[in-house]
């Protein structure tokens, strides 16, 4: 078996990233779109941590910041979702077609 190198992790991260992008681009449900964004962020994290093995701990620090960011994003995103749902009674992203309601 080939030894596991950084490249292997990068490929997994790329796969996750692609999955996240597919989710964002194709799904209608806002909740799942938000979750796909989490997937993308995680793919980035995996990259950062994988690189941190090569270049020192800074990557991990960045990963922590990304997680913080993800928390903030999830909170605000879900807040928007709730406000949106209350007004339109739908969670479909393609029905968010008004600038103001």
């Amino acid at each position, binding site marked *: 078996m080939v030894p596991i190198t950084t490249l292997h992790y990068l490929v997994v991260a790329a796969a*996750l990233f692609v999955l996240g992008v597919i989710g964002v681009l194709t799904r209608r449900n806002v909740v799942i779109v938000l979750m796909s964004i989490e997937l993308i962020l995680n793919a980035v994290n995996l990259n950062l941590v994988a690189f941190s093995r090569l270049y*020192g701990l800074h990557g991990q620090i960045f990963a*922590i910041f990304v997680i913080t960011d993800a*928390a903030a994003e999830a*909170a*605000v995103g879900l*807040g928007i979702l709730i406000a949106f*749902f209350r007004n339109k009674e739908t969670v*479909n992203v393609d029905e968010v077609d008004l600038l103001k309601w």
Partner: protein
Amino acid sequence: MQPVATTFFFYFLSAVTVISGIAVITRRNPVHSALALIVALLGQAGLYLMLYAPFVAGVQIILYAGGIMVLFLFVIMLVNIERAQKEEQFNKQWIVGIVAALALGVLFVLVYMKGKGLFPQTVAQLPEGENTQGIAMLLYRDYMFAFEIASLLLLVAIIGAVVMAKKRI
């Protein structure tokens, strides 16, 4: 500590992560998606452990799986999903989306293949035992300012979420 069966664990965890990732974007029921995402996150935490980043793994579990995902589940339960489940799950440009995303993936792989030689051949010496201390030093010394900004960001997010989720603005 000498890692054991690294190869097996890597493939196992990657498989878990990627398969759960697929489940996230294909499940009809958002709760199932969320559960799949949790599995993906835990698998990723395992990958972090393999990368000698136990602190990030811990943060991943405690914040992502224990915090953010609970928030997701909470919201899914608040919004009525039964009707959303019966509707069309994918939007009209799904073919375009998948093609674009796959193209992006191919691009990534190509770049990695080309740029493989650019990576340093030596692995940085990061003993697991001092990982947390090292991160603490960096976080509170070199990245002190960023750390404070992150806390500010969280504060803004809290206020924003509260304002938006309030019944009457």
